[in-house]
C-alpha cells in the first residue's frame, strides 16, 4: 500500500518521513550519499571521468580540437562545457533540443569554471591569433537522481585533471602544424571547485544532497561551490526563503564536505596516473 | 490503406498460385515509363512512372571543398522529398521518416567506390570538388518505392553532364578555377556500377518482386537489395517482419537476378531515349 500512497499523496508521504527526521531513502537530513569517481573511463576522449553521487551518474568526456583564437582574445584558447540531460537518464526528459533544466545547469557549470579561476585559458593558446586548443567538455547524465551539479563538477574536474595535450609545432608562415604525439603535457588545473546541493522544504527543513524525488517535492534548492578555502558561488535560484543563519549553516556543512570530495578527486586521478605509469 | 482479412487471404492465395491480383507472375514488374531531361534548371533529371508510383529526380551540381578526412573524394548527397500530392499523410513533415529511410538507403548503396566512384568528382585534391545533389521528389506512391527511386536516380545520373573545368590556378591558399560555360563542353558520369535496388517481398511462403501497396500490406517482411554489377552494395530488411536465414538467402538470390535483368533493360532504354528527344513531361 505504501507505493500507492506515495503515488497519490507524494507530499504527505514525504512529510510523514520527515516528521521522524529521516528521509524516504533512510538517510538523516545531514547525511550525504556515497560518492564514487572513476577517471579515464573512455579511451577515445582526451580526458574522461564518471562520477556517481548516490544513484546520480554523470560521465564527462573531454575532446581537444584545434582552432583559431577569437580576435577579442587572441591569446586564449577555449573550454566549452555542455551538459546533456538525455531522455535516457530519466523519464522527465523528452528527445529533442536541451531542456530548460539542461541549459540552466550548463550555464551554472560554465559560470563556476569562470568564477573559480581554476583554469587559465592562456595555457590553451599555441600561437597568438593563429592557433589554440579548444577543449570540449561534454557532460552526459546517465542517471538523474538529484544533485546533478555536484556530480557534474566532480566528473568535469576529474576529467580535466586527466587531460594531457600533445605538443604542437606550429609554423605561422606556412600555416603548417606538426604534432608530437609522444610529448604530452598535462593540462594545468589551478584549483578544484566542488559543490554541495541542499533542498529546502517548508522554509525550515534543509536536506543535504537531495535525490530527484526530494528535489521534486521540495520548494527550493541551494548550491554552494567551494574552492580551496574560499567560496566560489552561493546559488539560490529563488524558491522558499530561508534565514541567514540557515544559509551560513549550509555553507559550513558544504565546506566540511568539500574537503572530502577534494581528496576523492585526488585519489581517483592518482589511481589512473599510477596505472599509466605502470 | 486498410485491408480486411479476406482481402489479405485473397492476395496470399494469388501469390501462392503465381497469378497475382493484377495478373502478373511473382517475378514480374509492372509497366514502367521513363523520361530523362525533363527538369530545366538541373544538370540531369529523370522521371520514372512504375504503374502508380511516380518519381521525379533531379541532379544539381555545386562546387564544394572535400572533407578533411577524405580529401580525394567528391560528394554526393541524396535528398528525398515526399510530396503531399502523393498522400495527405505526407503533409508538413509527415513524410520525413520515409524520406530519411530512402535517402539513407541510397547513400549507403552509393558509398562503395565500386558502386559510384566519388573520386571522379574531385577537381583538386583537398580543396575543390563537385558536390552532387540528387533530389528525389515522390509524386505518387503506388508501392515499391525503393526500386522506382533507384531506377530513376540511375537514369538521372546517366543524364547528368558535368561541365569541364578549363583551368585551375593555385595561388598559395587560394584556388581559382574556371568552369567552361559552353553548353556541350561537358562529360557524362560513369554510372555502370550505380546500384539498382530491388525489394523482395515475402508473402506467405513465396517471394515476389515489385509489390503493389496492397501486397506490401500483406507482406511478412521484405528485403531491399541494392545490386551493383553482380555484387551487393546494400541489403536492408524493411517492413517489420523477420525471416528465416534460408528464406533470406533465397530472397537475395532472387533480388540479384532481377536487379541484373532490370539494370540491362534500363541501360538499353536509356540509350534509346537519347535518339528521339521530345519532351512531353506531364502533358502526355
Amino acid at each position, binding site marked *: 500500500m505504501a507505493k500507492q500512497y506515495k503515488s497519490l499523496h507524494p507530499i504527505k508521504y514525504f512529510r510523514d518521513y520527515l516528521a521522524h527526521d529521516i528521509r524516504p531513502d533512510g538517510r538523516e537530513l545531514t547525511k550525504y550519499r556515497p560518492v564514487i569517481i572513476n577517471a579515464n573511463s573512455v579511451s577515445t576522449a582526451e580526458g574522461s571521468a564518471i562520477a556517481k553521487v548516490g544513484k546520480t551518474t554523470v560521465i564527462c568526456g573531454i575532446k581537444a580540437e584545434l582552432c583559431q583564437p577569437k580576435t577579442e582574445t587572441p591569446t586564449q584558447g577555449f573550454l566549452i562545457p555542455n551538459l546533456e540531460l538525455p531522455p535516457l537518464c530519466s523519464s522527465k526528459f523528452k528527445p529533442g533540443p536541451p531542456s530548460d533544466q539542461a541549459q540552466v545547469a550548463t550555464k551554472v557549470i*560554465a559560470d563556476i569554471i*569562470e*568564477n573559480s579561476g581554476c583554469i587559465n585559458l592562456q595555457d590553451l593558446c599555441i600561437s597568438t591569433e593563429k592557433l589554440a586548443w579548444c577543449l570540449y567538455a561534454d557532460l552526459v547524465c546517465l542517471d538523474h537522481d538529484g544533485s546533478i551539479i555536484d556530480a557534474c563538477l566532480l566528473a568535469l574536474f576529474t576529467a580535466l585533471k586527466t587531460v594531457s595535450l600533445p605538443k604542437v609545432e606550429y609554423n605561422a608562415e606556412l600555416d603548417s602544424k606538426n604534432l608530437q604525439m609522444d610529448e604530452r603535457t598535462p593540462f594545468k588545473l589551478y584549483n578544484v571547485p566542488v559543490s554541495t546541493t541542499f533542498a529546502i522544504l517548508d522554509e525550515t527543513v534543509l536536506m543535504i544532497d537531495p535525490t530527484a524525488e526530494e528535489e521534486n517535492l521540495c520548494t527550493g534548492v541551494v548550491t554552494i561551490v567551494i*574552492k580551496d578555502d574560499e*567560496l566560489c558561488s*552561493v*546559488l539560490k535560484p529563488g524558491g*522558499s526563503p530561508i534565514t541567514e543563519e540557515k*544559509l551560513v549553516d549550509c555553507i559550513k556543512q558544504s565546506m566540511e564536505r568539500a574537503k572530502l570530495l577534494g581528496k576523492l578527486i585526488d585519489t581517483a586521478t592518482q589511481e589512473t596516473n599510477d596505472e599509466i605509469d605502470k | 490503406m486498410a485491408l480486411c482479412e479476406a482481402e489479405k487471404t485473397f492476395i496470399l492465395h494469388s501469390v501462392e498460385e503465381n497469378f497475382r491480383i493484377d495478373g502478373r507472375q511473382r517475378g514480374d514488374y509492372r509497366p514502367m515509363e521513363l523520361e530523362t531531361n525533363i527538369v530545366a534548371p538541373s544538370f540531369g533529371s529523370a522521371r520514372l512512372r512504375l504503374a502508380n508510383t511516380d518519381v521525379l529526380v533531379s541532379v544539381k551540381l555545386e562546387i564544394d571543398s572535400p572533407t578533411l578526412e577524405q580529401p580525394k573524394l567528391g560528394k554526393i548527397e541524396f535528398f528525398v522529398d515526399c510530396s503531399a500530392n502523393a498522400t495527405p499523410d505526407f503533409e508538413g513533415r509527415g513524410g520525413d521518416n520515409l524520406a530519411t529511410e530512402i535517402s539513407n538507403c541510397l547513400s549507403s548503396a552509393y558509398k562503395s567506390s565500386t558502386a559510384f566512384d566519388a573520386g571522379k568528382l574531385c577537381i583538386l585534391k583537398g580543396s575543390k570538388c563537385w558536390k552532387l545533389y540528387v533530389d528525389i521528389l515522390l509524386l505518387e506512391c503506388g508501392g515499391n518505392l525503393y526500386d522506382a527511386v533507384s531506377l530513376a536516380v540511375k537514369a538521372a545520373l546517366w543524364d547528368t553532364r558535368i561541365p569541364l573545368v578549363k583551368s585551375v590556378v593555385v595561388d598559395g591558399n587560394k584556388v581559382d578555377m574556371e568552369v567552361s560555360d559552353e553548353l556541350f563542353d561537358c562529360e557524362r558520369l560513369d554510372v555502370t556500377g550505380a546500384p539498382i535496388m530491388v525489394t523482395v517481398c515475402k508473402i506467405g511462403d513465396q517471394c515476389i518482386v515489385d509489390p503493389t501497396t496492397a501486397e506490401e500490406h500483406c507482406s511478412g517482411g521484405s528485403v531491399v537489395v541494392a545490386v551493383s554489377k553482380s555484387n551487393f552494395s546494400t541489403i536492408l530488411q524493411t517492413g517489420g517482419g523477420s525471416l528465416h536465414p534460408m528464406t533470406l538467402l533465397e530472397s537475395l538470390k532472387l533480388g540479384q537476378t532481377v536487379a541484373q535483368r532490370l539494370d540491362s533493360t534500363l541501360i538499353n532504354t536509356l540509350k534509346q531515349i537519347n535518339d528521339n528527344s521530345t519532351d512531353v513531361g506531364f502533358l502526355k
Partner: protein
Amino acid sequence: MEMDSNTDCSMPISNFGNLTRPDGSTIYSQGKSTVIAGVYGPIDVKPQKMLIDRGSVETFFRPKSGLPGVGDRLYETIIRNICETALVSTLYPRSGIQVVIQEMQSGGELISCSVNAACLALLDSGIDMKFLIAAATCCLDQEGYLIVDPTELQQEKAKATFVFVFESSEGRIVASHTTGTFKLEQYEQALDLCKKGSAKIFEYYRKVINGKYNKK
C-alpha cells in the same frame, strides 16, 4: 561614460501601465539598467504545463538584441522561481501566470533590476502575493572593499559580485547569485549591506504604489 550623478542613479525610477495588453506592466530603471516587465495572468495554460493544485508561472527574459541564449535561461529560471515563491499560486489552480522581462539597457545589476521590475509588475497586475520581493547588488573590489549598487565598470573590475533577493515580511533570503570568489565573512558582510539596500527598495515600492493610487 557619465559617472557624475551617482546619487541620482542609485534611486530607481519606474512607470506603470506603459503597455496596454498585459494585466500589469512597468518600466523600471535602476542605476544604468532599464527593463520593461509585463505580467499576464491568470490566463489559460497548455495542458502539458497545467498544474492541478496551483498556477504555473512562466518567465521569458528577452535580451536587448538577438535571441535569448543559455545565459538568459538561467535568469529566466531565477526570476521564475522568485515570482513563484512570492505569488499565492494556490489561488490560481489550472491556470498560468506569465512574466515577460524585456531588457532595454544594461548597465550593471541587471538581475536586481529585473527582479524588482517583475515585483512591481506583479503589484500592478493585482495578482495575490504572499510578500514583496526586492533585490540588491553589491560587489567586492580587488582591495576587499564592498560597494553597494555598483556601476557596470565597477562590476567588471570586481573580485566578486553578490545579488541577494529578500522578502518583505521577515527579511529572509529568497535568492542568492554570486560571481567570483570570496570568503565566508565577506559573504556575510555583503548580505548585511544588501539587506539594508533592499529596505530602501521596499520603501520605494510603498512610495510608488501610494503615488499610483493617489493619482487615481
